[in-house]
């Protein structure tokens, strides 16, 4: 690898033109990378720092740099709406991840049984992932609308007392987010698991079969443990989606009724952009970043460790 550097290192002075060209060649890879690195330093790391600084100020409508220490974080902790949003994230994220994993795993195992038309089914399961969360939200809002959607349809079949009004029920609205998000992302988890299943060495399965293990037992004891890395990646991707969920809430429930289905992402946007609470919004953004890091760091750590051992 260091070839590139050693080849073009002409002696200084000997043929100035060649050496300039050579120097340029040697620097070119770094020059090509430089803008991206600079962008990353400024727009990712710099902005994170900037948001952190804003979160220490009393900025309201416009950023001000009057520092108030961690007062915004204290306000956040005392803010009922923030707690609703955080609790919702735990409920939404937990259910979303768990249901996607279960559904994805079951579908992948079923699809792995030499199914005719497997390709078509896979396409059908996965297509929602290509849609915008706004589209998903709009469609599910229509389906879950009690007056004209699923509730009305089932009632028209003769079940007059059927109730499915979660969208307008403050206690249940957050679960409509789970339904729509699972619909959108579970096919993707299925694809991950299917790829994992196809990667398992057949000889392990044959050995288990020769030992007389039953099919469910083979799956439970042999196959699923092999899928552990996939589960790990899936959990990490899904929780990442959950923390970032913003569009879905905006389109499906608008955070309502009231702020019953708010998530931290919508809380942050509402305070930073529409309620003129830039300081508070920044503090909530920093806590979201903390949440992502709390998931990401163990993941990266185990990835790196796994690679070293593997």
């Amino acid at each position, binding site marked *: 690898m260091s070839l590139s550097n050693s080849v073009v290192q002409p002696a200084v002075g000997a043929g100035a033109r060649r050496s300039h060209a050579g120097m340029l060649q040697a620097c070119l890879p770094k020059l090509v990378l430089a803008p991206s690195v600079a962008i*990353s330093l400024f*727009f990712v790391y710099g902005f994170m720092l900037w948001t952190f600084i804003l979160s220490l100020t009393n900025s309201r409508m416009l950023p001000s740099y009057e520092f108030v220490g961690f007062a915004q974080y204290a306000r956040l902790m005392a803010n009922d709406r923030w707690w609703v949003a955080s609790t919702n994230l735990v409920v939404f994220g937990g259910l979303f991840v768990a249901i996607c994993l279960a559904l994805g795993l079951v579908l992948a195992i*079923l699809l792995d049984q030499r199914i005719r038309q497997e390709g078509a*089914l896979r396409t059908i*399961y996965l297509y929602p992932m290509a849609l915008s969360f706004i589209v998903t939200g709009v469609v599910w809002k*229509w389906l879950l609308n009690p007056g*004209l959607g699923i509730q*009305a349809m089932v009632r028209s079949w003769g079940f007059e007392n059927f109730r499915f009004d979660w969208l307008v029920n403050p206690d249940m609205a957050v679960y409509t987010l789970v339904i729509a998000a699972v619909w959108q992302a579970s096919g993707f988890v299925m694809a991950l698991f299917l790829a994992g299943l196809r990667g398992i060495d057949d000889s392990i399965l044959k050995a288990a079969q020769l030992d007389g293990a039953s099919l469910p037992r083979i799956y439970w004891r042999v196959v699923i443990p092999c899928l552990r890395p996939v589960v790990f990646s899936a959990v990490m991707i899904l929780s*990442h989606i959950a923390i970032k969920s913003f569009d879905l809430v905006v389109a499906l429930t608008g955070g309502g009724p009231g702020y019953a289905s708010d998530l931290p992402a919508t809380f942050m946007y509402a305070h930073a952009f529409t309620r003129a609470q830039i300081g508070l919004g920044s503090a909530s953004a920093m806590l979201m970043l903390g949440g992502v890091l709390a998931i990401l760091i163990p993941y990266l750590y185990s990835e790196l460790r796994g690679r070293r051992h593997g």
Partner: protein
Amino acid sequence: MDNVIRRRTLGARLGRAILYAVLLLAALFYLLPLAVMLITSVKPLAEISPGTLLSLPREPTLAPWTKAWGEACTGMRCEGVGVYFLNSIAIVVPAVLISTVIGALNGYALTKWRFKGSELLFALMLFGCFIPFQVVLLPMAQTLGWLGLSSSRAGLILVHVIFGIAFTTLFFRNFYVAVPTELVSAAKLDGAGFFRIFWRILLPVSAPIIVVSVIWQFTQIWNDFLFGVAFSAHNTQPVTVALNNLVNTSTGAREYNVDMAAAMIAALPTLIVYVLAGKYFVRGLTAGSVKG
């Protein structure tokens, strides 16, 4: 997995039947919203009443589509989502192209011209894939203001390029790592330069990863809402923002058929890409998320 012996007993057949039934039921669950969206979008408003969610239109009409495209109200204006669809295209195309080109060059430099610290730089950039964008929204708004790009398409293009580079770099880097280095080393000894090697050796084999990167960026940027809503004005909005405004505009009777037609319009480009190039789409998803 049930490959050793396939007995066609009654039980086995029943098992297969249940298996197919479950798979079809799942397919129904995934297809239902799309079907309802499509059916509703070609119904006259008069046919939309409680209990008709799944009934086919008696008098199918494209009027909701034309209205959604050219007349429906999104917020204060009533010019449909068509102009915003074109906005999205005007934002997506340059953003995808620029971020893919930069990603390709980065990936190439990071794998074939490694230098001390290049892996660290890669890790540094990779982090950009993971941050919740809420953490950059406020500084970005201010910076775009300073650059004179507030609420402009150019500003949105810039934002999408900036936060797309991490992904495209990741794609190309992981792809070029697997390209044998011997050819590149030989070319270096022959005195071929950085761009020449890229052009003659790497680029000709890059077609699959270019497709992955373009599709990934296309779906990401087309489907974006957060940046669109935060950094655009009424005349530069992308279609996702316009769709959300249309659905939440509360003037007059709700025209659900128009809402659904607008949703279809916003969904079609990515759906078409997915149907035509689903294989690459999946590869992008897994590369973008698993290997991250």
